[in-house]
């Protein structure tokens, strides 16, 4: 093996080895030539690995050692809410009666599943302050698109087809403008002001009779609460538009403010963030969408409903935007989120937000002397720092992120949001202890000092990882996207 210390599974494959145990073959083994036409019988077998069960376990155990999760160490990746993933969630999701049920079983024999979904909808309605919730969208971005499709259907039902534009702030998640496009809208950007909030004058300038909606994250991606939210709602609503809430940052406002009370008409949630999905290495997520009463008729079908203590799937929804996903959503993730909500209760969820916000403000205050703080006010669950000062010393934010790897941390989100130079977006979450935060703060302070005294240590980081910085240009210029023998 040249220049590699971790084999691909294909490279340890040996003809003749197997890693499976198929159930007994107890019927006549008819030749498939007698069943299928010759041209549809596969000639060459797919080149999949041939390995023993122990080979497989060692391979993936080795890979897991080359991966950092929340269970490995602190993971303050802003806007991703990398909180602890409770273990009871995993147990509950694996109970046969939840894991091994088929979406087309008779409703009478899956009442437990429907009841759980119904009760989760009810809990999310209370938490968001909306009037109804669908659990169908598979992830946050999918929820955004679902919500925008409903807004489009609403305007169209009013004969208002000139509303072709969706307004998003310059600090918005990339999924917002992308979802607007997929829902058939054009995106218009509204600027932030010097306080990091949506510039109301600019909003008044861009809003108009062609406005379908404003998409807003509140608190925004700078971790700041849009305190002019009521004025913004008034501006959008009086122009005939709808207000959309990106729920990626809901961890900041549980029991403190509900999107429904702030004037939002549609909200999506990321159950794999605020409600401990888990993150899964990049999914599966779950992106339920809540709406106010005038949009209920457009919700995707089916919707879980209840009558006289019996739960059922309501398909009788003639104005629905249709189906956004096969079956009823990522049920397995919804089971986990429900388990989490029931583990926390109302007082627990309130403490979640309070502690998350205390943690973020504490870190921000302690780091402010060492890094630029672009917006000096209380943050919510996350905050941004700028590496501008370090950049002048030749140390970029990317270098700081890579240096953090040497301390065993996952770095913050970097270079986002786009309206802060050399941005670092830090979200500690409520599940981290003060000791963990203090140790991270010390590491950040040390890196700031290194930037001044021995910048090359930072510039050349990481020093301790299994692999050094990777050539991303090469990867994109000559894409190698699969193994070939």
């Amino acid at each position: 093996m040249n220049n590699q210390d971790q084999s691909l599974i294909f490279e340890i494959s040996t003809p003749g080895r197997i890693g499976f145990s198929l159930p007994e073959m107890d019927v006549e083994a008819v030749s498939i030539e007698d069943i299928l036409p010759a041209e549809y019988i596969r000639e060459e077998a797919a080149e999949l690995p041939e390995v023993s069960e122990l080979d497989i376990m060692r391979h993936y155990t080795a890979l897991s050692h080359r991966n950092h999760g929340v269970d490995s160490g602190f993971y303050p990746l802003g806007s991703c809410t990398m909180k602890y993933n409770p273990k009871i969630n995993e147990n509950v999701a694996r109970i046969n009666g939840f894991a091994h049920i088929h979406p087309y079983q008779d409703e009478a024999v899956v009442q437990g599943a429907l009841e759980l979904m119904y009760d989760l909808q009810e809990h999310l309605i209370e938490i968001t302050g909306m009037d109804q919730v669908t659990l169908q969208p598979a992830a946050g971005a999918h929820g955004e698109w679902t919500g925008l499709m409903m807004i489009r259907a609403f305007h169209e039902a009013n004969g208002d087809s000139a509303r072709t534009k969706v307004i998003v702030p310059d600090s918005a998640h990339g999924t917002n403008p992308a979802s607007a496009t997929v829902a058939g809208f054009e995106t218009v950007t509204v600027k932030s002001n010097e306080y990091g909030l949506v510039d109301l004058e600019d909003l008044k300038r861009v809003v108009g009779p062609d406005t379908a909606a404003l998409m807003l994250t509140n608190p925004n991606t700078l971790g700041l609460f849009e305190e002019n939210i009521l004025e913004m709602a008034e501006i959008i609503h009086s122009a005939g538009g709808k207000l959309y809430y990106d729920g990626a940052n809901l961890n900041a406002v549980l029991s403190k403010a509900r999107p429904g009370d702030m004037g939002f008409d549609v909200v999506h949630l990321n159950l794999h963030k605020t409600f401990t999905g888990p993150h899964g290495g990049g999914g599966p997520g779950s992106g339920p969408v809540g709406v106010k009463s005038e949009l209920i008729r457009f919700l995707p079908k089916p919707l879980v409903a209840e009558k006289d203590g019996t739960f059922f799937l309501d398909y009788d929804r003639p104005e629905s935007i249709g189906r956004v996903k096969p079956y009823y959503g990522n049920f397995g993730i919804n089971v986990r989120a429900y388990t989490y909500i029931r583990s926390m209760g109302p007082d627990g969820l309130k403490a979640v937000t309070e502690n998350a916000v205390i943690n973020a403000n504490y870190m921000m205050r302690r780091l402010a002397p060492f890094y630029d703080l672009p917006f000096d006010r209380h943050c919510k669950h996350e905050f941004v720092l700028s590496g501008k000062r370090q950049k002048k010393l030749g140390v970029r934010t990317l270098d700081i992120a890579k240096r953090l790897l040497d301390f065993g941390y996952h770095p913050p989100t970097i270079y986002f949001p786009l309206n802060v130079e050399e941005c670092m977006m830090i979200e500690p979450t409520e599940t981290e202890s003060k000791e963990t935060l203090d140790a991270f703060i010390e590491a950040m302070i040390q890196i700031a000092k290194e930037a001044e005294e021995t910048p090359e240590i930072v510039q050349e980081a990481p020093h301790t990882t299994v692999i050094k910085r990777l050539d991303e240009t090469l990867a994109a210029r000559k894409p190698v996207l699969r193994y070939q023998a």
Partner: protein
Amino acid sequence: MKHRYLPMTEQDKKEMLSDIGVSTVDELFHDIPESVRFKGEYKIKPAKSESSLLKELTRLAAKNADLKSYASFLGAGVYDHYTPIIVDHVISRSEFYTAYTPYQPEISQGELQAIFEFQTMICELTGMDVANSSMYDGGTALAEAAMLSTGQTRRKKILLSSAVHPESRDVINTYAKGHYVDVIEVPYKDGITDTAALKELISEDIAGVVVQYPNFFGRVEPLKEIEEIVHAHKAMFIVSSNPLALGALTPPGKLGADIVAGDAQVFGIPAAFGGPHCGYFAVTNKLVRKVPGRLVGQTVDDNGKRGFVLTLQAREQHIRRDKATSNICSNQALNALAASVAMTALGKTGVKEMAIRNIQKAHYAKKSLQEKGIEAVFDGPTFNEFVIKLPAAYKTVNDRLFQKDIIGGFDLGRVYPELEDHMLVAVTELRTKDEIDAFVQELGDSHE
């Protein structure tokens, strides 16, 4: 408030608030306008202890009839297959399931390499050049494929076979609305896409033609014949495929498909009431820069050592925003890992053997039913599913089966009015001869 997930003590809180320079937590929320501030607590169920919550939810789950306690002949896109036990052991390693998208490759090589291996295995099974890191599910993957074809050809119409999974068709229609794309259904005839009708409907306005292989009725579509019709009009050929079936069937990549999409639920992923499953998306080299979602590529580090990174990100929403190829961000990474482990465990010989056993067991069931006078309609080559005309009303039959601990097949009358009291029967390698015989016996006894 003490909770096992919340480590902050009263002492911690006091010290931290003092360092922040406030005296109460509430001061940190003063930027929320008074009139919208939520007072008090949510009116939701109170917290439960670990043991009592587990008991409550175990009881709730027991209200569901699960596939491990019944013999299931229900498929229609979601299947009860052999899952190597090792799959759950691997995906339970929390370095995988508590990580997120591998933005920092130096500490995410495990996930990145696992995805690279997944991409390779999907390419092998489908016969395509490039596969992405996963999509939400088969239905949305197919919808993205259809939309890709409209962007690529700059045409605004899709032809969609009515023998494609009904829920995938619904999802395609919803996506098409978003993109102002027209979807025209191609009827089926004798259980496969009606190629004569396809020839009538196709024109130079058609961006892509979507078929399923094996199709919703379990039939092997004549891809070769369809491909010629599609490409004669420079439309794109989009095939939805059950990747397990491709262990035995000629892969669509060998039959001229431009995009192959589908669901890898058949590989180690539980039915879970319909999700999360694992969409896959595979294309020819020509389309690599049009692919939605994440792609992992091989490269080298500063020392020349092999490593893996997220690549060709200029397609994606976090870079291109409103010009992205798709809005997808989180996908189904953990389930792609499960599918990878299952495909690895089954391996080169196991996938083929398992696919063939599905064909053989379904064949045995079909033949046994015939002997009882229950004929398969649309007779022709099938994978592990086929359609029968029931000897009695669907509900009557299904309730009878359930009394014998059998979950019957899919009620086709739900979505195809012309197929009232027809059942789509799925027979996987997990169904034993005894279970099949009992199923056949019960159906035979259902004659009215």
